[in-house]
């Protein structure tokens, strides 16, 4: 599966092997890590809620779009769900292609769209004890001052 949701730690090496190809000269990997702060608050851990039936379909669609648009050889994305601790990998995107320009463009296209189109929600648990649903990408799109993660 080009896009999948995982309840356990993402095996980055296994993911890279799935896009390996002797005809490819370039691999670009994006890993999203759980940061220890957001919007000025100290983060303790994080929880992802994923609505899989739609996320899986739409995730596969995004990857097909990237392959078609940038003509890369292979691409995949794995997203975690459930409770994650600091510095865990929340999401990984791997793209391989003969040349590097397309691999960079496709990798960025995939992560940008994964973050804005899939039914995935992030609840941050702060050191202060408070927890909060996060939706910064959209604040950003609406012109607020939050930056992309």
């Amino acid at each position, binding site marked *: 599966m080009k896009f999948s949701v995982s309840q356990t730690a993402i095996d980055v090496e296994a993911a890279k092997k799935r896009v390996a190809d002797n005809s490819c000269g370039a691999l670009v990997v994006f890993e999203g890590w759980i940061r220890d702060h957001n919007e000025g608050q100290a983060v303790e851990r994080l929880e992802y809620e994923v609505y899989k039936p739609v996320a899986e379909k739409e995730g596969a669609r995004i990857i097909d779009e990237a392959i078609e648009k940038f003509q890369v050889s292979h691409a995949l994305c794995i997203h975690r769900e459930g409770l994650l601790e600091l510095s865990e990998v929340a999401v990984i995107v791997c793209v391989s292609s003969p040349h590097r320009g397309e691999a960079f463009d496709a990798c960025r296209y995939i992560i940008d769209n994964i973050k804005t189109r899939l039914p995935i929600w*992030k609840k941050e648990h702060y050191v202060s004890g408070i927890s909060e649903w996060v939706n910064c990408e959209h604040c950003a799109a609406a012109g607020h001052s939050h930056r992309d993660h």
Partner: protein
Amino acid sequence: MKNKVRYFALFREQAGCDSEIIEWQGGTAAELFRMMTEKHQDLKTEAAALVAVNDEMSGWETPLDDMDEVLFFPPVAGG
């Protein structure tokens, strides 16, 4: 007509339930959501909210059919 409505993440907390069956006169997903914000005081319209119908992404202005399952997604934040 009848529609099953499902709420996710923030919307689930605001509505106070996972899902409910609504009997109404019919209309678009936007109209149904507006009706639900009247029913559930805490449920708030969000510009970046998304809607899916029968597990396919859809548009707020698409008219719903009887028995459609309507999924209300608050602003997403994957990655």
